[in-house]
């Protein structure tokens, strides 16, 4: 699996009492280390009003982090696209693409939190329509000089993107999707499906078939790059890995469950409130270097996923532990996967 790309997801939501200036400096340190160790990408997610956790905003964060990690691709993974206006997103991402020398990845998904829909003056009911028309408008703004298009919540009248992206025809468009209809949409509208971190491995294997059939229907080939997010933690042994990451990872999934993430997940795999051991068995890559490498290889073989976006820090996890696992992944797991 010589061409596997590994990415670092700095989702890192932090507990309310944390000093965020310290946390910011730590994230910059993580990015510098990932850049040095040959990671391919850095990913930041998007949420607003994320209490009880603290979190940085995606656009300023990724714009800043590129100065520390000039070799990493910058994955906006994901943008809650139905909340936004296409002119804003098209121009902002084009600016980042220019500033970074063509390293932007545009991840897009629908969103699901009521507090966000309300604050952006929209509703859950409108999300699919807005998502689709926004995506069409953004692609047109990136690839056409002057655009005229009337959407349900915007109008482009002789509009243009003030800056065009460096990547041609445009940065890769990864579409996040949990449920089957969303996966079909990803096949139809995206450059690839961006596999989420929540679903069980067996669900993803089943859904990859849904994705392939939808690609066939759209007359599109299987994408060269197939990215997937997973929770990953590596230590000298499986027991040690579980012992070290459990207090933090378990808390994160409890928060997802409380936010209602599992309500938009496919039936039969929509309970994130279950026991930690079960979550680990089916969804996370946690273990010794040998075990994690094997899990990644098996996952690649079953799904074709060849860009693994790894979350390696959860609320409350100390920096030293994060740096250790980032390093051990690069030094002991990457070579095993690439040889395997």
């Amino acid at each position: 699996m010589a061409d596997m790309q590994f990415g670092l997801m700095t989702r890192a939501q932090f507990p309310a009492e944390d000093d965020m200036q310290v946390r910011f400096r730590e994230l910059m340190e993580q990015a510098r280390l990932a850049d040095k160790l040959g990671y391919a990408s850095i990913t930041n997610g998007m949420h607003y009003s994320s209490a009880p956790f603290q979190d940085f905003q995606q656009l300023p964060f990724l714009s800043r982090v590129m100065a520390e990690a000039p070799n990493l691709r910058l994955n906006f993974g994901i943008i809650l696209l139905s909340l936004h206006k296409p002119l804003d997103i098209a121009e902002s991402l084009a600016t980042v693409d220019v500033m970074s020398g063509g390293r932007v990845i545009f991840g897009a998904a629908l969103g699901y939190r009521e507090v966000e829909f309300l604050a952006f003056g929209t509703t859950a009911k409108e999300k699919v329509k807005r998502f689709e028309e926004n995506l069409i408008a953004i692609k047109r703004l990136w690839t056409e000089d002057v655009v005229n298009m009337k959407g349900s919540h915007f109008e482009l009248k002789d509009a243009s993107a003030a800056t065009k992206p460096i990547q041609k025809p445009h940065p890769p468009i990864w579409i996040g999707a949990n449920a089957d209809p969303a996966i079909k949409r990803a096949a139809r509208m995206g450059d690839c499906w961006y596999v989420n971190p929540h679903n069980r491995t067996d669900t993803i294997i089943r859904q990859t078939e849904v994705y392939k059939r939808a690609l066939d229907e759209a007359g599109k080939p299987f994408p060269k790059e197939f990215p997937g997010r997973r929770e990953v933690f590596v230590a000298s042994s499986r027991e040690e890995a579980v012992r070290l990451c459990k207090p933090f990872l378990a808390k994160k999934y409890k928060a997802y469950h409380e936010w209602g993430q599992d309500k938009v997940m496919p039936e039969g795999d929509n309970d994130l409130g279950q026991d930690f051991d079960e979550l680990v068995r089916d969804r996370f890559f946690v273990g010794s270097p040998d075990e994690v490498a094997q899990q990644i290889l098996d996952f690649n073989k079953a799904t074709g996923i060849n860009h693994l976006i790894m979350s390696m820090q959860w609320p409350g996890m100390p920096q030293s532990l994060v740096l250790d696992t980032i390093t051990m992944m690069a030094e002991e797991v990457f070579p095993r996967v690439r040889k395997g």
Partner: protein
Amino acid sequence: MKKMQFGVMLRGVFPQGDDMRIRFEELMEQARLMEKLGYDSLTKGSHFSTYPMQEMVQIPFLSRVMAECPSLRLNAGIVLLALHKPLEVAENFATMDLMSNGKMIFGCALGYRDVEFKGFGIERKGAVRRFEENLEAIKRLWTGGPVTMKGSHFELDEARISVPLVQQPHPPIWMGANADKAVERAARLGDCWYLNPHQRLDTFQRQIEIYKRTLDACGKPFPKELPMRREVFCAPTHEEAVRIAGPFLKSMYEAYEEWGQDKVMAEGDNDISMRYEELAKDRFIVGSPDEVAEEMLRYHKLLGVNHIIMSVQGTGLPQSQVLETFELMAKEVFPKVQQGM
């Protein structure tokens, strides 16, 4: 605080065909030089759909440039506030204030271009209302939470910003204003009026009285910081400065006129179509170091301005000339101005 602060507006507007990657590197070089020479602030404006000009977007640009100039205050001058949603703006600025260690300035104004209003799905006639309710929501999100508030185009349901601000109670709010009514609004709602680059000095002299009367009516003191943007260019002699900067300034004002900037300017001072000399008088600060210093002091004496945001690179001025004028300003103009205060 210094008696007079000096900042540069990196307008970052370039003609079609320019390689924006090269222009971006040049802007980073400008920022590093400003840091080295002891400038006080760096400003980036905001416009969308600027064809036939190319422009970089404000929030990603300011977030990136802060890595090059950690000592400079970063002025988002201005945010077209009516276009946006308050939770997004409040959150972005909180993250930027934190990343920059409390250096953000929040400039805001209404905007005036139809292509922007339409692109963001709003009507021009709702702009003032959106502006005012957005600002109220942002201040509430910045100063406490959770916030519950129903606006005309958003609803906050126990919403909160996700990181705290470094500056307390919040970053300074500078309010751009051209017309008299907008100047009154700036007195009422802002931490200060952010004097625009377009109006003549005599218009400001008239409007500063309106500003002061409105401050009095609100029971607010005159602000400690009164910032103003001007087109500035300095060369060893007057003739050389005009020869280099004149054509760029004139062509830029032709573009402003095409965009309809003059339609929202103050009555009696809303014609920007005249030839350069007339346009420049009491509006641009262009000349030798002595002339530029004197002119700056005049704005200070007559208006109380104590932070000058200089647009140096109009559209097309070559990098070498921008860097030279930065140096000349820092070495020969700034000391003269500080001494004259």
